[in-house]
């Protein structure tokens, strides 16, 4: 009797715990899946809708087109506003995003190296200033920057000067901040060894620091690519010629114009415009995750 009772009391909690665990595991997956559907469904629906005829798009909530058509894609190829179509606008986007990315990683790395590895008078103060600019809203700067660039004659520049030039000077401070965070965790021994071997600071930067910082630099490049390709306000203010419109503005333009509202065309245009971002995200999602975690967790 007592043995049975004993084994029951031993067994019961186990069963209860296991059952409890099973229930909570179930709930975890349940929540994850439900929330996941809310996260992803709109995007999948968007992809599906681009293949639907216009009268089918809002007739149900299904993903798969009943009468699939590529007419949305065909009409999204149409050039609009003169010398511009979706492909050209994507090329326009790249033509300033790529310089922006390159300039940003170079200038941000150099600045981060200066702050992270040298002691000089006023360093702490200047670093505090740099940190403060992280909290300086771009909205406050838009108007005076516009007036400044206007005076310089850069507004409507065919070379996207107002968009590109600031990145030469590490103006996206977030990346400097991110790189400084990484730099802190890199041991200084190698640099000291290099210095003893007669490397000057520039050589040290190129040969020692950059290779070790590479994962962080790649993250910076990826984020800058994403943010710059999504940027809407910059081109809205500084690009006036349709032939020079980037994809973001082109999407807005093609949404506003044209007779009859063809949602499949508009959604197809939108989807094409974010394809490069989607591809890059899937190709390099670990870099994104590591990059963003590093900025937050170590700060």
């Amino acid at each position, binding site marked *: 009797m007592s043995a049975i009772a004993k084994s029951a009391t031993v067994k019961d909690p186990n069963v209860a715990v296991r059952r409890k665990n099973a229930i909570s595991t179930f709930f975890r997956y349940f929540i994850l899946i439900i929330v996941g559907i809310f996260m992803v469904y709109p995007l999948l629906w968007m992809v599906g809708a681009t293949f639907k005829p216009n009268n089918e798009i809002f007739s149900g909530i299904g993903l798969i087109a009943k009468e699939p058509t590529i007419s949305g894609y065909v009409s999204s190829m149409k*050039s609009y*506003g*003169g*010398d511009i*179509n979706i*492909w*050209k606008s*994507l*090329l326009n986007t*790249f033509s300033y995003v790529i310089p922006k990315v390159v300039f940003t990683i170079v200038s941000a790395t150099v600045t981060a190296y200066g702050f992270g590895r040298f002691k000089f008078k006023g360093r702490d103060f200047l670093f505090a200033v740099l940190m403060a600019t992280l909290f300086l809203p771009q909205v406050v700067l838009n108007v005076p920057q516009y007036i400044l660039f*206007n005076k310089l*004659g850069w*507004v*409507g520049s065919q070379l996207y000067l107002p968009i590109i030039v600031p990145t030469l000077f590490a103006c996206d401070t977030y990346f400097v901040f991110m790189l400084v965070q990484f730099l802190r965790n890199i041991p200084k021994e190698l640099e000291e060894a290099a210095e003893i071997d007669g490397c000057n600071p520039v050589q040290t930067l190129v040969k020692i620091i950059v290779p070790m910082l*590479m994962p962080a630099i*790649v993250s910076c490049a990826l984020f800058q690519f994403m943010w710059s390709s999504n940027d809407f306000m910059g081109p809205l*203010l500084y690009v*006036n*010629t*349709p*032939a020079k419109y980037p994809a973001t503005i082109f999407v*807005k*333009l093609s949404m*506003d*114009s*044209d*007779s*009859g*509202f063809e949602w499949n065309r508009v959604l197809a245009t939108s989807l094409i415009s974010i394809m*490069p971002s989607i*591809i*890059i995200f899937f*190709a*390099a999602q*670990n*870099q994104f995750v590591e990059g963003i975690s590093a900025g937050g967790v170590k700060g």
Partner: protein
Amino acid sequence: MKKKLLSVSLAAVMALSMTACGSTAVEAPAETPAATTEAAAETTAATEAAGDAADYEECEISFDWWGGDSRHEATLAAIEAFQAKYPGITVKYNYGAWTDYETARALEFQSKTAADVNQINFNWIGDYDADGSVFLDLNTVSDTLDLSQWGDEYLDMMKDVNGGLAAVPVSMTGRIFYWDKTTFDEAGIEIPKSLADLRAAGKTFAEKLGDDYYPLALGPYDRMIMATLYLQSKLDQPIIADGTFNYTEEQLKDGLDFIQSLEDDHVIPSLETIDGDAADSFDVNEKFISGKYAGILEWDSAPKKYVSALGDARELVVGEEFTDFGGKSTGVFYKVSMAMAISTTCEHPKEAAMLINYLLNDPEGVAIMATERGIPQSEIAVKTLSDADALDPLILEAHNKVMDSAAFALDPKFEDSGLKSTDNGVYKDAFDGISYGDYTTEEAAGILFDAFTEVCQ
């Protein structure tokens, strides 16, 4: 491993983007016929240079305009013909829909980066060329641009502060009703010829077709214009004349009450309903396209884009100006619908003037443009088109009805961007406010009155 994966994927992306480049390069000639003609034109220019007597420089000029699809197509055709006629001149062009167009151009005028030739609205001269430095005095190119085709009274409307001729008017325009006859047929009633008919139609629509059918749809600015027609008729004087605002607050309130009564009688949808359609204008509004909004109050020059939006299934007809607003006249006004101007920054004003002259005065260009910018004001253009029987019957009918019943000219101050802006303009605030129930008509009248007084200072 990770690095390797990344570099592989980056390579893949680059390869993809390169194929993207490749495909555009291949498609480009097919997509921009202008480019090929340009090349062809250059070769002909080279071979025929000796024989060509026309005295102009080979150059590139730029041209910006706004409009709907049909205007774009006609203008593109006219540009090609112009380039064929004057080999060596290349026209670069930009066009767009009205939304956001004005802002982009205004900033270009400000930064002196605007195109050489611009289609402009008549209030732009005062708004964006306050010191007369933005638009070229067209008297300086009168050798090339035949100004004698316009009556002095029309050219006078285009003067800038220095007395220079900032632009030439393309056409005159006023607002008139267009009705979707198909919907009225479905409701079994005639299209409205008077305000009384319209009110009755509102009731019939709700009963026979359903609550989401309206005989007329008016956005905030349309409401302001409808109120203006009503008040100008009733009070028999223009709302603004020579820069002076003529009405009192009480009179404005009367106009606003009138508009609100239309909404209450199910004649026009509330602005909340229209906002919910998520369309920037009626020609892209699904409810207009499907006939649920069966009428609009539009510029006489504008019907083509609505006709093409409706397609073959539905018929758009020109209505009558109402004569039963309660006054002697119809209250209808006319204004310069759009004008052509040359920027002072233009390096080839002569060739720019040639383009304008081609579009507005040259029988060849006029025939191609036809009535895409409304019934032309240039005398030779009107003659050319009527001789060729090329005046679009719909536009001609609308234009004649407007001009026959027009009682007043519209002052450019009425279209001041602070009043008219579709984002933060006073008209929008006042009419949205009433329709959404935030303002009484009395409050809204006060807001409008203050704004008019400020603009007309």
